[in-house]
């Protein structure tokens, strides 16, 4: 029986069709997907914080409205993804608990601080740009609900990246001090953005299995290269440089060569020792605790309405 189910699963994959919630799935496929989707959802939820910190300090009503919409989108993306994880049998409350107690991770990038308003622009440009590189191939992920959530997310990410780049263009046409802020933010975010693609392929033991399952469509290094090739011409138009002396066009490869990110730093930040890890989790915990009365009140209200309807 199990062999038959496995054969059906393999056949769906081989024909490049999508697996759906009530299909039989191998346990390892299911748990890998839950881990990946949850990590992705957690990243969206924690990802509200670095930019959310600037909403009250945005320099104009226009920028404030844009930033609010963007942070609201991040919340939405988190919810699409939790919803996809639930189709695999995960419990939303349990996922949140795992985020809070550190047994599930989120993207290392959100553990860096946003020191100036230029950071909001650079996050849109580079961090969301890297996210788009990672996410566009996931629209073809073999698990249907995940792929469909990614399609919605990718549509909205395009606004995120463009508002960031436009913000930076505006600052670059400002004062010398504003231009220095943009360069400074670029210098600080470039390497962490490259690390968003994960460890190098030589140190990424799960990649082969994830690609066989068509959960992942490209290796970490392929996507990182694509991101570098995309970003260099954008930096030229903007008038900033990346802090990498080894970055140059390689005519033979038809790609940019670039330096090695500090993988020890990535490991440190992922395992909890980044600049803002403790702060991010403490903030989320406080938000959850402070909002508990709302959930309790809504539950009590719903119960009361049901009782009145019954009588």
């Amino acid at each position, binding site marked *: 029986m199990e062999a038959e189910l496995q054969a059906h699963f393999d056949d769906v994959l081989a024909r490049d069709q999508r697996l759906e919630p*009530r299909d039989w799935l191998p346990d390892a496929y299911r748990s890998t997907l839950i881990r990946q989707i949850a990590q992705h959802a957690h990243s969206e939820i924690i990802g509200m914080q670095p930019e959310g910190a600037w909403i009250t300090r945005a320099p104009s009503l226009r920028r404030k409205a844009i930033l609010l919409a963007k942070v609201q989108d991040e919340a939405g993306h988190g919810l699409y993804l939790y919803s996809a994880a639930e189709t695999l049998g995960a419990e939303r409350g349990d996922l949140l608990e795992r985020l809070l107690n550190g047994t599930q991770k989120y993207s290392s990038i959100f553990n860096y601080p946003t020191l100036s308003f230029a950071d909001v622009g650079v996050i849109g440009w580079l961090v969301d740009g890297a996210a788009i590189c990672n996410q566009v191939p996931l629209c073809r992920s073999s698990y249907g609900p995940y792929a469909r959530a990614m399609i919605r997310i990718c549509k909205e990410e395009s606004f995120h990246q463009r508002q960031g780049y436009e913000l930076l263009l505006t600052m670059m046409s400002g004062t010398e001090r504003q231009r220095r802020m943009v360069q400074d933010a670029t210098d600080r975010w470039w390497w962490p953005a490259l690390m968003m693609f994960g460890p190098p392929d030589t140190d990424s033991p799960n990649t082969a299995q994830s690609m066989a399952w068509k959960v992942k469509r490209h290796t970490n290094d392929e996507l990182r290269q694509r991101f570098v090739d995309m970003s260099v011409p954008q930096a030229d138009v903007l008038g900033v440089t990346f802090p990498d002396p080894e970055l140059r066009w390689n005519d033979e490869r038809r790609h940019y060569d670039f330096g090695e990110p500090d993988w020890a730093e990535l490991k440190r930040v992922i395992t909890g020792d980044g600049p803002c890890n403790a702060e991010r989790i403490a903030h989320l915990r406080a938000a959850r605790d402070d909002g508990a009365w709302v959930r309790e009140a*809504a539950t009590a209200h719903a119960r009361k309405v049901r009782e009145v309807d019954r009588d």
Partner: protein
Amino acid sequence: MIDGELYEVFVRTKRGLNHVHVGSLHATDDEMALRNARDLYTRRNEGVSIWVVRSDSITASSPDEKDPFFAPSGDKVYRHPTFYEIPDDVPQM
């Protein structure tokens, strides 16, 4: 349950089209589910009408029984117009 019940969300993107399933969400009652669905799934004019329904109210066919369940329609080729051979020179058919 403190995080609310699970609801499935269906959106009609414009008049003349069917409602299509777009995902799910948590809410403590139907009214909240509808409002959350608006905020979550139609932030950019994606819909003109929304249905929400508690997930546990849906009865679905199971993929495991897919073949026998849909088998009755598999061998009835005469239900399709292409089953019938009509000479090429018959107009408008």
